[in-house]
Each structure stands twice: as structure tokens, then as C-alpha cells.
């Protein structure tokens, strides 16, 4: 009912910056381009990296950045730039895999809980409470010790602890969408429950999941780094940003770039993902 006039007066809905629509699309473009470059770096790492990330050159260890080694060498004489590029392969792809797995698991359970109603909902919510009641780190520590180290078990562990956030998000959205007219209309038209779920309910709900996933990936990369610090992270010698940061930390005084380079890699990725998440949030809010 708001007349054009009120719209002007109350500032165009949804856009919080004066330059609104143009502003938001810039964020999306910048965000997706950053994330895109990271994905490219991860995929093309073997060709982009000047050296083999595992090749050691102990006598040449801790060399300062130079022409041959733009980011210098680490404490075992390996080229930091190459390890950084290959590191994206581990961190980004692992992050996406874990967030994806958690997302899928969470969305499915969220959908079922939200849509199936009463008994199923109570059971799933109780399970969600139990998983979320435990501090994430405890569950991660136990899972990793049970599953043993390695990328596979880290993805499984992160997914098994991370799915609850997605499930809660999706379930909440499903509860809202479930009673709306178009869902009951679809039911009336004789569509079976699964088809209604995936054809009608899901399209309205997945955007929330994607938005959360963008920030979840950064949190997961942080978690992988923390696991490395506790000694149960990615296996050496595989290059991984968190481990590179920790290894470089001992040389903070003399070789600050050993930690700074991977640190910057994580931050810029975080920035990219946040911009994408912001843009998607605005789009979803309208």
C-alpha cells in the first residue's frame, strides 16, 4: 500500500546504501571474482606453481624473497609461493567439500524435520540439540582421533559437526514456507511429498543455506588451521595455509612473511566470500 511517495521518503526498501542496486552488484562482482581466482588457483596450482611444493632444499632454507623465490623459502627450503598455491587446493577445496557436505546433510535433515512435522521433527531437533550442545572442538577432537588423521576424516568430522547450523536454518524457512498457499496448492494438485519438497519448498529455502555456506567456508578453514595447531590437522608435508602460518610463526621476528603470506590468503578469501554473502543476503531480503 506504500505509495511511491512514501517509498522515496523511507529510502528504497532493501538497499541500505544510497547508491543501492548499483552498489550491491559491485559487491557481488568483486566477491565472485575473488572466489573465482582462488578456485582457478586451486585447480591450476600444479601449472602455476614455479616449484614442486614438496621439493626441499635444506641448505637454502629460510631464504628471503628473491627473484627465484618471490616469497622466499620455508624452514625446509621449500618455495613458499608454490606451497601457497597448492595450499589453496587443500584449504579451499577442503573447505568447500566440508561446507558442502554439512550443507547437504543439514538441508536434507532440515527439510525432513520442518516438513514431516511432529514426531520426526522432535527427534531431529533433539539430535540437533545434542550435537550443538557439545563444543565443536570436543566433537572434532574425538571424531578425528576415531577416524584417524587425513583430509577425508577431517571433511567427515567437520560435516558431522557443521550440519546442525544448516538444518536449523532450513527447518525454520521450511516451517514458514510450508503453510503458505502455494505449497498447499501443490499438495492439492496431487504432488507427492518429495516432489513438493524439492520442487517448491527447496527453491525458496536453499538461498539461506548458500548464504550461510559462504561464511561457513572461512570458519572451516580457521578450524583446519586450529586442528593443525593441536597437531591433528592435515598431514605434513601437504601444504596447508594454517600449518604454514604455524610453522612460520616461530620465525616471526626475522621472517614475518612466512606467516603473513598464508594469513593474507585466508583473509582475502574471507573478504571475497563475505562480499558474495552480503550480496546474496540483500537479494534474498527483497
Amino acid at each position: 500500500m506504500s505509495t511511491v511517495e512514501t517509498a522515496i521518503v523511507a529510502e528504497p526498501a532493501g538497499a541500505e546504501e544510497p547508491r543501492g542496486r548499483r552498489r550491491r552488484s559491485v559487491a557481488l562482482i568483486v566477491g565472485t571474482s575473488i572466489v573465482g581466482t582462488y578456485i582457478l588457483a586451486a585447480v591450476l596450482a600444479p601449472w602455476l606453481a614455479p616449484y614442486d611444493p614438496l621439493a626441499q632444499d635444506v641448505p637454502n632454507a629460510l631464504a628471503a624473497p628473491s627473484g627465484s623465490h618471490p616469497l622466499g623459502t620455508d624452514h625446509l627450503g621449500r618455495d613458499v609461493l608454490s606451497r601457497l598455491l597448492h595450499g589453496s587446493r587443500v584449504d579451499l577445496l577442503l573447505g568447500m567439500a566440508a561446507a558442502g557436505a554439512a550443507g547437504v546433510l543439514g538441508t536434507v535433515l532440515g527439510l525432513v524435520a520442518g516438513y514431516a512435522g511432529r514426531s520426526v521433527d522432535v527427534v531431529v531437533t533433539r539430535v540437533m540439540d545434542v550435537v550443538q550442545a557439545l563444543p565443536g572442538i570436543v566433537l572434532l577432537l574425538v571424531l578425528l582421533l576415531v577416524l584417524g588423521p587425513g583430509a577425508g576424516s577431517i571433511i567427515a568430522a567437520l560435516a558431522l559437526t557443521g550440519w546442525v547450523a544448516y538444518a536449523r536454518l532450513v527447518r525454520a524457512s521450511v516451517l514458514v514456507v510450508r503453510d503458505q498457499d502455494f505449497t498447499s496448492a501443490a499438495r492439492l494438485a496431487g504432488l507427492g511429498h518429495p516432489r513438493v519438497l524439492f520442487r517448491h519448498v527447496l527453491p525458496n529455502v536453499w538461498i539461506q543455506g548458500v548464504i550461510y555456506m559462504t561464511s561457513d567456508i572461512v570458519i572451516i578453514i580457521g578450524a583446519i588451521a586450529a586442528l593443525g595447531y593441536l597437531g591433528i590437522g592435515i598431514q605434513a608435508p601437504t601444504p596447508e595455509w594454517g600449518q604454514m602460518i604455524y610453522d612460520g610463526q616461530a620465525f616471526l621476528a626475522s621472517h614475518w612473511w612466512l606467516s603473513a603470506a598464508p594469513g593474507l590468503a585466508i583473509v582475502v578469501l574471507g573478504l571475497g566470500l563475505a562480499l558474495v554473502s552480503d550480496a546474496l543476503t540483500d537479494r534474498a531480503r527483497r
Partner: protein
Amino acid sequence: MQRLGYLGRRLGYVLITLWGVSLLLFVMLQLLPGGPAEAMLGITATQQQVDALNQELGLDRPVVAQYVDYMGRLIRGDLGDSLVFGRPVVDVIGDALPATLKLAVYVVALSTLSTVTLATLAASFRGRAIDHVIRALPLIGVGMPGFWIGAMLLFLFALTFPFFPAGGIEEGFAGALRSLFLPALTLAISVSAILIRSLRRGLIDVLESDHVLTARAKGLRGVRLVVRHVLPNAAIPTVTLMGLVFVSLLGGALIVESVFAIPGVGQLLVNGFKRHDMPLVMGIALLSAAAILLVNLLIDVVYSLLDPRVSLR
């Protein structure tokens, strides 16, 4: 009245969930390779020696019997004895709890303070340069691992400019304030990243709302307007996030306590895992689970107090 009924029901749920947590943990800890006996005796002990110790610790009985026994004692508040420290788990945790609680309170204070100021600044100058800076700032916090932020802060403010001690806790209130500032800041940086974004969004929505316009038409302005009308409404969605933040706090504390040598519960947990001190690990996990569930319950109650439209059903 109606709220007590709700509280009763929710406390019931908390107990059920805690029981679920204890079951999940007990099963998973059985899956861990090796056991406390091997951990205590070292790899070289003869198998017969290991069996003797297991028998003494009651670990040779069937898992179900052990679980029933554990729950029986748990209900009486007895978390058993720590294998490593040789003292009741409750005492061991009790010794370490003050440090973690001081840190947690300090982080909540720091992050709330920084969140409210930065979010209000960003919202009131939305769209301008300061808004973008404030929105980008916490991103650095989210991405960076806690141990790196901690190491940098220590390097800068405990060595290069020695304003703060390099880790540990000093006696007394002032001592604690001084010595826990850097660790609390480390955690606050990553925690407030999420809170600032949420409060900023909340503030902008409220600043554009009709009822703020009405308030301005009544002659309210400046701080009085923000405090009486803007903040209370904007803070509601952020309050619900506090629960999520509190959970991530426990994980972060574990790392920060190790970096800053704070004798807290996080340290106990890491060492408990390394030394296979199952009773200690179970005790800490259960207590933190209880804390998380109670905090979530508290937040739901606060939410209903803050927003009358939400009824406790």
C-alpha cells in the same frame, strides 16, 4: 505462571539433551584406539600389567555396565576421578574454571563494547567510507586462526611494546584485567566479527523504521533516541546470535589458553585427550554442554523479555 511452565519444560529438554550428550560421548570415547591404561603405563608395559590396571580402573567390565555405573555416579554429581591428576574430576575442573570464566566474561565485555560502538558507527554513517572499513575489519578476524592473532598480539604488545605480560594470569582484579586483555582481545576479534554484521543490519533496519520517525517527531534525538528506541529493537536479533557465539568461544578458548598459558578448562581438555584421561574429558564435555544449553535457554528467556511479541510456548 505460564513462563514457569515453559521453564520447566525447557529444563526437561536440557536434561534429556545432556543425557543424549553423555551417551554420544561415552560411545565415541570407547571407539578411541588404545585406552587410559596403555596411556598411563606407556607402550612397554606387559599386557598383564595393562590388564591389572584396567581391572583396577574397572575398564575391563562390559561397556554397558561401565555406562550404567558412570550414570549412577553422575546423577549424584560424582564425575569420577581424573586418571592423570589422581583427584576428583570436579576438583580438577573447579581449579581451572575461574581462569576460563574470567576470560569468558572479559571476552563478552570486550566484544559487546566493540560490537555496539562499531555497529552504531557503521549504521549511522552507512554507505560512507567508515561503514566499509568497519564492515571489512572483522573479516580479518574471522579468517585468521586464533593462534596467529594471539602470537601477533603477544609479539607486538608483550615484547616490542611491553605493555602486557606475555601470558599467564596475574593476581588480583587489576592483574587479571591486565594479563587477560590480550587473550580476551584475540577471542573478541573473531567473535565480534559475526556480531558487528548482525547488529549493523539490525540498526539500519530500525533507523529506517516508522516508529523511530515517530520518536523523532516527539522530540527525541541523539543518544537518548538511540538508547531508548534504536538499540533495544536492533539488539534483539543479535542477542540470539550470542548463543552461537558462546559455543564458538569455548572452542577458541582452548587455543587461546594454550597460546597465552592460561590454566583454564581448555588446557585441561587438550591434555585430557592427549593423556586419555576419559573421566576428565567426559566431565569437561558434559559441564560445557550443560553450560551451552543453559546459556541458550537464558537467551530464549531474555529474547522473550526483550520482545513482548514473542510468547514463550
